[in-house]
């Protein structure tokens, strides 16, 4: 076990270097002048007076790829990811501000996906071929085909436009004012957690109110996927001998399902958690834009639209690290849960 962890950790820097080189190589598609122009507002108005060639030289934009790459890496080592024109702050600062927002959204989304998927999947499997099962089968096919941006917009139309229950954004104006007070400590950057830690439950509740719709919007597809997996996996385990034994012992059906069948049926479901994180980060891009929720996803879209390369590189790196590390944790978790898997 320890050897496996060490081996995985040892490959981590290599993967990160490859990933960062891959991302950085995208820069080559743009000319030095295009990259420079992003930093100069109204370039076409003052155009003639800008010493473009000098600036390109000064910032080393005409250097060969590997020189630029290494100077970028050097900057990262010192915590300097560059300046983001689209966020109007250093990339590192923008990331520390937006990343917790996205993580918060992902946590709420993951709760909806796992609780809903496992619960409803169990219900469908235990009512195999009855009405709830049939409804679940059709509903999940619809759920898988429902794009996040359409579902998100429809939620917005109904619950904000019509009913006015759940507003877009991250916080209401009054809560925003509270959060920026000097007496309010930002422990995690997540409004719900910080609200509770500061004893401002009204702020936490307001944050949750803003989180619910976007979380729901990008959960629906994953929830459907998980529900189907849970259903089929549980149906398979319910036919196993040990389940029959448990029933023959005269255990309550509820106990058989909860303690004997479902625990084993959960194993394949956990592997989904790995792809879940990547899919949720992708979904966050759309959902955050739809709901005007200022997180990493929206940051990357505005950065991309403004050709803000230092921001794109920074976000990509953070996402890459996040996915690689979480996948490693999930792999280990899987080994812990299923002792029959040998570590390669």
């Amino acid at each position, binding site marked *: 076990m320890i050897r496996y962890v060490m081996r995985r950790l040892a490959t981590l820097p290599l993967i990160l270097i490859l*990933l960062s080189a891959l991302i950085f190589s995208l820069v080559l598609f743009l000319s030095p002048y295009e990259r420079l122009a992003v930093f100069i507002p109204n370039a076409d108005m003052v155009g003639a007076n800008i010493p473009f060639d000098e600036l390109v030289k000064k910032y080393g934009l005409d250097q060969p790829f590997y020189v630029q790459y290494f100077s970028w890496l050097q900057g990262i080592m010192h915590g300097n990811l560059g300046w983001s024109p689209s966020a109007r702050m250093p990339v590192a600062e923008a990331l520390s501000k937006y990343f917790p927002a996205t993580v918060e959204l992902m946590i709420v989304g993951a709760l909806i996906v796992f609780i809903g998927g496992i619960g409803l999947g169990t219900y469908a499997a235990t009512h195999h071929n009855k009405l709830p099962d049939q409804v679940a089968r059709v509903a999940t096919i619809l759920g*898988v085909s429902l*794009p996040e941006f359409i579902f998100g917009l429809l939620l917005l139309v109904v619950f904000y*436009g019509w009913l006015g229950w759940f507003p877009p954004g991250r916080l209401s104006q009054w809560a925003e004012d509270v959060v920026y007070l000097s007496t309010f400590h930002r422990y995690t950057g997540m409004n719900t957690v910080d609200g509770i830690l500061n004893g401002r439950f009204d702020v936490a509740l307001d944050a949750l109110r803003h989180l619910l719709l976007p979380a729901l919007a990008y959960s629906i597809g994953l929830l459907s996927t998980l529900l189907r997996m849970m259903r089929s996996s549980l149906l398979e385990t319910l036919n196993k001998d040990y389940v029959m034994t448990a029933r023959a012992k005269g255990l309550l059906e509820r106990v058989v399902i909860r303690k004997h069948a479902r625990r084993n049926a959960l194993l394949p479901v956990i592997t989904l958690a790995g792809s879940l994180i990547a899919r949720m980060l992708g979904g966050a891009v759309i959902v955050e834009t739809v709901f005007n929720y200022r997180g990493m996803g929206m940051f990357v879209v505005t950065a991309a639209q403004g050709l803000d390369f230092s921001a*794109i590189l920074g976000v990509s790196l953070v996402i890459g690290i996040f996915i690689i590390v979480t996948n490693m944790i999930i792999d280990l978790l899987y080994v812990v849960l299923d002792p029959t898997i040998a570590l390669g």
Partner: protein
Amino acid sequence: MDSLRKVLRNPLGLTGLILISFWAVIALSAPLICPPKNPQNPYSVKRVSYSSLPTPPSPKALLGTTGGGYDILYGIVWGSRNAFRVGLIVVSTTLVIGVLLGGLGAFAGGIADEIIMRITDLFMSFPFLIAVIVMSIVLGKGLDKVILALIVFGWRQYARVMRSEVLSVKEKDFVSSARSLGMSSFRIFFFHVMPNSIFPVFVLASLDVGATVLIAASLSFLGVGAEPGYADWGQMINFARSWLLGTSEHPFFYWYTYVYPSITIITFVLGWTLLGDTLRDVLDPKLRNNLYAAKPNAKHE
């Protein structure tokens, strides 16, 4: 043909095929349904007026117009051609790349397989959508750029599925007997291994057409895909974004701006999902409901 008959006999599969055929007919007869104003450039959405407000369905524009006077029906009808184009080009290209890379890697084994799989892992360690956004931004606006970006990052799952299939098929007796007959590796791979391992890839592909079109639509929705005014479903939804909230008395006042494009995208994707789903059940009853996730032990192979 046998499997086609089985798909047709399944009500869900039949619904899927009907939905796909419906959109195929629309795409093929686009010039008849909505004759373009400018035949040189049929993909730029017809503008009925230059009014900044959307106008409700009328004889002039059967499904209404979005802000800027863009004809919604025209956008949907000509957009269907682009949906098929993106879906089919991307899926067929990525399928070929993935099948060759994953399949040949697994068949050859050893260092080739190792290198290909590490590259696949590298591509996998990044959210698909963000990768495609970054790539298409760098390449510039236009649907062809989106297609290219989708291909560059889209082959990885085919490589994975194909690899795990080939790994099991190449141990089968008929492969060893082919080898003992003195057949070349080329022949064994293309005539014996590949035909026996390709079905899961086809299932994946049919589910993927819908998913790919969705990603392309999401890109235009975010404003990084096709040029403004280009007939594209995601763009139609993007046009609708400003009109979601209606007026204070009528929250659904501009319903036509988002309802029709939404129905369009959902039915198209649903068609492919239903087809793929049924195809999987038909081709391999054992795989039922499992293809959405990675195989439980695939990571530890």
